[in-house]
């Protein structure tokens, strides 16, 4: 059953819409006070998972727990959560203060107490001067803050956020990510965050679940998900990866040697016997480029994209295309057509589970 330290728990939850299984046998535990992200491309089931926690959808199988209590058959308005919608869904006929006070009013909090709490919440999101405005009179960023204030003022057991920053421009989004994180930590709220933006998930979360086709592909801390992706999908969805196929020819327990079409390369240790066909993934930022002709993987520079702080080098090797991100440290200059060597440390190359066909 549920353990007291987890504010949200999904137990083998399944949900189908007609012939489509949107959420398939998903189990999640979210410890109190943490931010948990559901990350994946559109249609992966992340929003449905969130709506199952809210109770806007009923699971076909499995159970949902909030603060240890099974809420599977409880109506949404009796569950202890609040939610920030992608569209914000601010009530257009109510002022900012009335919007923020709505949840307290529904909880029959006396008027003067309500006013104080609303003032407080608006101060937290730095909108205390705009209480009398209507939502339509606010900018997108301000509306987003009102939606957040409206959700936190009721002190929910869990705060659900459905792509809350999706409608904001990049700069504002990054600012809000930091602000959201600090607000969440100050208030100690448990939050479940749905996003398709991998950077956002890495920035905000204590733990991330990467979803695809209704299934959780991998669940873990941002660093773990990024550094040790277990599948090609996760390795490709979070950041970019170079994929190289080959045959394991040696495994000394500390590292393995993989024979590829572009020669032998090293990869991080895995429980794999020599003779096995594997696919390894290397992050572009881990690929170094050298002019020396000994060691590494031979490749030719096909294209160079200058992006300010880093430069993207697109290369072709006998094992397929390679990508390297080079830090702009001032000295390196490369030419298109140049023959070079790609080098990486053994622990930068991860053996990933071969794709299910």
């Amino acid at each position, binding site marked *: 059953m549920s353990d007291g330290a987890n504010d949200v728990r999904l137990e083998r939850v399944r949900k189908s819409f007609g012939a489509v299984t949107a959420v398939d046998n998903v189990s999640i535990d979210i410890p109190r006070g943490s931010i948990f992200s559901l990350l994946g491309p559109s249609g992966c089931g992340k929003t449905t998972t969130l709506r199952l926690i809210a109770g806007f959808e009923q699971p076909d199988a499995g159970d949902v727990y909030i603060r240890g209590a099974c809420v599977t058959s409880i109506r949404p*308005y009796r569950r202890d959560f609040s*939610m920030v919608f992608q569209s914000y869904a601010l009530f257009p006929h109510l002022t900012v203060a009335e919007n923020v006070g709505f*949840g307290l009013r529904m909880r029959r909090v006396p008027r003067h107490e309500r006013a104080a709490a609303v003032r407080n919440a608006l101060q937290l999101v730095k909108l205390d001067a705009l209480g009398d405005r209507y939502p339509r009179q606010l900018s997108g960023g301000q509306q987003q803050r009102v939606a957040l204030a409206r959700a936190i003022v009721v002190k929910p057991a869990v705060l659900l956020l459905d792509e809350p920053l999706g409608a904001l421009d990049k700069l504002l989004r990054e600012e809000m990510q930091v602000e959201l994180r600090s607000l969440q930590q100050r208030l100690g709220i448990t939050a479940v965050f749905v996003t398709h933006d991998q950077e956002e998930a890495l920035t905000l979360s204590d733990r991330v679940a990467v979803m695809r086709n209704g299934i959780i592909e991998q669940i873990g801390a941002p660093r773990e998900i990024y550094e040790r992706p277990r599948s090609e999908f996760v390795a490709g969805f979070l950041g970019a990866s170079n994929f190289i196929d080959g045959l394991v020819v040696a495994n000394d327990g500390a590292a393995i040697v993989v024979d590829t079409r572009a020669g032998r390369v090293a990869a991080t240790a895995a429980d794999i016997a020599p003779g096995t066909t594997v696919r390894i993934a290397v992050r572009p930022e881990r690929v170094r480029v050298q002019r020396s002709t000994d060691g590494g993987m031979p490749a030719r520079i096909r294209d160079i994209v200058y992006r300010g702080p880093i430069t993207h080098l697109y290369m072709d090797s006998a094992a397929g295309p390679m990508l390297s991100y080079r830090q702009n440290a001032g000295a390196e200059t490369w030419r298109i057509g140049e023959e070079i060597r790609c080098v990486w440390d053994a622990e930068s190359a991860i053996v990933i589970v071969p794709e299910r066909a």
Partner: protein
Amino acid sequence: MKGGWAWALVLPPLGTTLVLFVGPLVYLFWVSLHTASQSELYGHALTIQNYMAILGDAFYLAIIRRTLAVAAVILGISLLIGYPVAYFVALQPARRRMAILLLLLFPLMVSNVVRAYGWVAILGRRGVVNTTLRDLGLIDVPLELLYTTEAVVVGLMTILLPYMVISIANTLASLDPRYQEAAQALGAGPVRTFVHVTLPLSTPGVASGMLLVFLLTLSAYVTIALLGGPRSKLLVSMVYDSVTAFQWPHAAALAFVLLGLALAATAFLLAALRPRRVQGAGR
């Protein structure tokens, strides 16, 4: 150039409206400010006597009151019946919703004259209701159902109810369900979600439905003439009576009183419901 093209597109309908609507309206107003004439459309002397005769006469004031009362009753009943129906219709999936709305429109395809005579056949002294009640032995003398204000209300209701249902249903159906979910997420049950969120957000549909029903009530004639009889006349009936008596200036003045009522009621409804406050609002 772009502006020129826009004007070129707008001018024909604008011209048509000016010539065929605004012009006659101004002329009608001009007519209403003259004395009556035996031989001409209107006499030579300018006067406001036509308006004084209407607004200062107990007979006409009673008719204005009755007109407003009938309109208010029709509004009230069509709102009470129409809103729940519209709510139900809006909950249906899109295809079924269209089918239901078409069904609601179906009665409107029958002429008002035919429908009014249908009510005559039902409500008349020897109509369906009276003969049934007599055969059951419940009454000896036929009830006076026809040629009453109630008959007018029932007759108009059946014509106007679809307008109310359709305009509210369309507003409710286009309402973003996230608003209701947001209310639920904040702890509002079904009733309070309806009272605090759905109902206020449906005011544009309620306002347009009420305006349609009210304005169509003011301008309805056939139904009133056939079901109201001589004792249940409304303002429109008086316009017709004046015209047939060749009292053109008087008829014109009545028309403008009617127009004034329509404008005042529109302003009142919009001020009371403020449909604009929920439109073009935050996403």
